């Protein structure tokens, strides 16, 4: 495989989806094997990618570049750095696990796997795009499969099913359905998700187009843009252009993350989605937001990032606390996990906002860790729903006798989600907290309160599901016994625990991606300072961040790099 690893990872699921088109739905076993086979190739290749990524060298590796459109300056430019690599691995693991989690889907199995594979491939595509166009291309491509997966194989909420009056039916399909909070049908959830994400995606597209225009380089290539784009100090509308672009990019991508005021599509979507989709959705799709912000805003607009990233530091507190409280009061298992995910994504924003080596490394590791934890929880919530046909926590209880294996896994999943020592989440959380303490002590306190909240709502849910008296109507519920049912959970548990005991490779890989980025962001000082010390300025070309050995940089922060002087170079 070698250099072509990225192509295998990206195109194996696509090839699987295309192969599935030609298989009949009646051969259910063949359909599943093709899906599992292509996911397995993808997983193998991404394991190879993860372990052969050279963190000493750092930078973008496994780069592939194909000219795609000369007129528009687009090329299919693929490559991963230390930030993309673990996320590609997480996507591949969750895809492989997701295929087994949805093993028992009877209705239109083939179509389900086609859309699931396309969804995963599109997600993976974002993590390896080095071209703004393809980043957006894959990003937007992941939205439509979500619509179909939610709509066709999803489930309504309890309240919706109770709404049987004809007027209610009419209300559900009305144009003004967006404001119809009473009934969260799966159609509503799917449409809300698509419209919400598309609306913010086009904002990000506007930002991308502005970068394209004002860089004047006639290219969408991130590597070229980050070195050559001169977007600073262009006045527009009373502010500067780079700020407008940054805000468009940040909020455009933060909607999928989901940052606090933009989160409302996400729990509804999680609740309606089938288990495997929820896993991919919460596990990796939400990370597209953070990842795209890092890839576009951090890489191309480092100075603006330093200036405006406190916005994220403020909003992430609301994410953490709000998500936590709603999760505590929610009565639907998937709502609890959904809100817990959006609360936990606040930690990632905190880690990003601090712009510190440790905290950003922690944030990226947390994305990976959270993918495993939330994947487990959603898989088990899906199993419980399949067995009992309800997600209503108060009506459930006492399931620990019926399903001991699921119960045991659930405990591990909760521990992982909380970040108890023993799971990789712990390492990541500690790194975020330690790393951002200097800059945002208040936010760190809020984050610690958030961990307490996580304890509270996950234990509350665990108690509701597994302890106490059991309703007799659930006595037919049974445990996950077959290998296909246990395999996905065991994979995710192994990964989550394994990386706690052997975190160094993950840490080194992530760190190799974070270092040049943070170095680039933090080493440029405000213009005012430059003018004062103009005489002592060491004139230096733009930080060639990808190639430099930046280990010694933290003390180097005050070295001045006057960006304004580039025109006379």
């Amino acid at each position, binding site marked *: 495989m070698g250099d072509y690893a990225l192509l295998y990872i990206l195109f194996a699921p696509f090839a699987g989806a295309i192969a599935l088109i030609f298989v009949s739905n009646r051969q259910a076993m063949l359909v599943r094997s093709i899906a599992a086979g292509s996911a397995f190739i993808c997983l193998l290749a991404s394991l190879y990618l993860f372990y052969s990524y050279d963190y000493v060298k750092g930078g973008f590796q496994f780069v592939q570049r194909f000219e795609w459109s000369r*007129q528009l300056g687009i090329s299919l430019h693929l490559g991963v750095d230390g930030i993309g690599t673990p996320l590609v691995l997480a996507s591949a693991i969750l895809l492989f696990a997701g295929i087994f989690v949805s093993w028992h889907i009877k209705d239109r199995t083939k179509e389900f796997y086609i859309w699931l594979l396309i969804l995963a491939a599109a997600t993976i595509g974002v993590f390896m795009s080095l071209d703004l166009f393809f980043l957006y291309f894959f990003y937007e*491509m992941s939205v*439509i499969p979500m619509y179909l997966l939610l709509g066709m194989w999803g489930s309504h909420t309890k309240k919706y099913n109770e709404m049987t009056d004809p007027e209610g039916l009419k209300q559900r399909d009305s144009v003004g359905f967006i404001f119809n909070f009473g009934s969260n049908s799966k159609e509503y959830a799917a449409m809300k998700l698509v419209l919400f994400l598309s609306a913010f995606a086009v904002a990000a597209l506007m930002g991308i187009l502005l970068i394209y225009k004002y860089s004047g380089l006639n290219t969408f290539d991130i590597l070229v843009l980050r070195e050559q784009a001169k977007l600073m100090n262009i006045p527009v509308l009373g502010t500067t252009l780079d700020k407008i672009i940054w805000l468009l990019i940040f909020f455009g991508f933060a909607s999928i993350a989901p940052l606090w005021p933009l989160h409302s599509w996400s729990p509804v979507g999680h609740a309606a989605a089938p288990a495997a989709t929820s896993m991919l959705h919460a596990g990796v799709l939400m990370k597209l937001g953070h990842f795209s912000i890092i890839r576009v805003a951090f890489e191309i607009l480092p100075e603006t990032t330093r200036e405006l990233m406190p916005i994220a530091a403020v909003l992430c507190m609301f994410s953490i606390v709000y998500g936590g409280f709603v999760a505590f009061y929610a009565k639907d298992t998937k709502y609890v996990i959904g809100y817990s995910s959006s609360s936990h994504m606040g930690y990632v924003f905190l880690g990003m906002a601090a712009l510190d080596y440790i905290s950003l490394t922690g944030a990226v590791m947390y994305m990976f860790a959270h993918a495993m934890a939330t994947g487990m929880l959603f898989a088990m919530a899906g199993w419980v729903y399949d067995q009992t046909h309800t997600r209503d926590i108060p009506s459930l209880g006492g399931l620990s006798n019926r399903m001991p294996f699921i119960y045991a896994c659930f405990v591990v999943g909760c521990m992982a989600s909380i970040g108890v020592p023993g799971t990789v989440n712990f390492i990541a959380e500690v790194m975020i907290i330690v790393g951002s303490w200097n800059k945002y002590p208040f936010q760190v306190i809020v984050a610690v309160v958030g961990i307490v909240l996580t304890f509270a709502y996950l234990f509350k849910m665990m108690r509701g599901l597994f302890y106490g008296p059991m309703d007799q109507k659930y006595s037919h519920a049974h445990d996950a016994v077959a290998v296909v049912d246990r395999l996905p959970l065991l994979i995710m548990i192994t990964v989550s625990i394994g990386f706690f005991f052997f975190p160094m490779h993950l840490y080194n890989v992530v760190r190799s991606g974070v270092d040049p980025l943070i170095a680039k962001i933090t080493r440029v000082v405000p213009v005012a300072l430059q003018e004062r010390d103009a005489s002592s300025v060491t004139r230096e070309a733009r930080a060639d961040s990808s190639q430099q050995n930046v280990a010694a940089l933290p003390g180097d922060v005050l070295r001045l790099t006057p960006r304004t002087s580039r025109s*006379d170079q």
Partner: protein
Amino acid sequence: MNFSLTMSPSDLLLLLPEILLTSWLCLILIIDFSFPRLPNEQLAYLSIAGLGATLGCLAWFNITGITGTLFAHMFVLDGMALFFKMFIVGSTILVILASIDYVHRFRFFRGEYYFLIVMSALGMMFMASANDLLSVFVTLEFSTFGFYVLVAYLREDMASNEAGIKFFILGVFAAALLAYGISLVYGETGKLVFSDMKATQATPGLAIGFLLIFGALGFKIGAVPFHSWIPDTYHGSPTPVTAFLSIAPKGAAFAILLRMFFVALATFKPVWILLLVAASILSMTYGNIVAIAQKNMKRLLAYSGIAQIGNVLIGLAAGTKMGSDAILFYLLTYLFANLGAFAIIIAVSEAIGSEEIDDYSGLGRRSPFLAFSMLIFLLSLAGVPPLAGFIGKLYIFVAAMKEGLFTLITVGLINIVISMYYYLIVVKKMYISEPHDPSPLKVSGPIKVVVYVCLAGTLVIGVYPQPFTDWVVSALLMFSNLAGPTASLPVPPAVIPFGG
């Protein structure tokens, strides 16, 4: 005006596609009259053979690069004309294939149906070559003439008759506008050929004249505020005619619009850019918002077509070589997506006799092939990657972005989201709602061919657009002297030079 009709054989060569098609037209008519028992499929395939030969001839011209002008610059054959001629002939072939089943609904004049379609195509081919105001008028009326009859072809159907009357009255009104506009322009400039008008002075008469001409062409493409005929006419016409009407005349009209704005009015760009921006914003917003409330597939596509034309006008407003490239590319993607969607409407209405969106419930179970194809076409129209429509929209936006048309792009992007809603409503009906009647649908062979061709076009252009962008760029080499991406970057503030 010095006018000579001495034609050399090489001049005749330029007219070869039109001559070929004209003689084929006569052949169709003669065969139709001579063999009244001939099954009309045969006649359809005969027309397709003629159109195919014409397409081959055009492709040969395109490869060998045969270009030139005729009749004192009234008729011009350049890369753009060739592109639009192939566009028109290609869409005509697909429309005829799609109508083979539908024709059984006509009680009379089945043979003439093909004759009229091919005749309109011939008129539009001349439109693509029209290079002066007189030939614009003549060719435009020639092509519309066939449509007046075609729209009202379902004689027993009141809706079809209403569509015919509406189309006719408004069409004649547009023709009057066009004639008046032409007379004003001629009165002011004394010139008819577009390329001669380059340096004319701006006068109120000229402005009004061109405004009137734009109105007539706006009627053809269905841009707001000249769109009022579109919904009813699309709804009432026989579906293949609607499909034809939604594609080919728009292509031909854009050929004229491009020549008019980019050649004749190139110097007045700051003026007409406002007109186009306004028309574009209105078309996109109106089309998309009204489409939300539609219950009928054809009406939905009618309003979505108005919105799509708003998108194309963004490219025209950019006023650059890249903008014109983007227009051609966009129309190409629109051809496949729109014709494919109409082919499926025909297939569904043949099977269940309804064009209401509600009757598409459960199509995903009744006919996975049709539902999946419809999904692809609608998503392409909405502009979702990796489909052709997305690349088309992006091309247009990039072209406009280079000219700094920020308002227009913002409105365009917001409209993408609005349009997503109503396209997904159809997707929801097809895939999520349960069918009223679960019996599977049968799809006839010719329609399948059309759907496959359109699917291939939509997917291939979406995944690998390079050959197609190369084609449109080379087709429009004549515009390469236009002001390219202007160097109007805001000047960065004065830099503080550091010592040395």
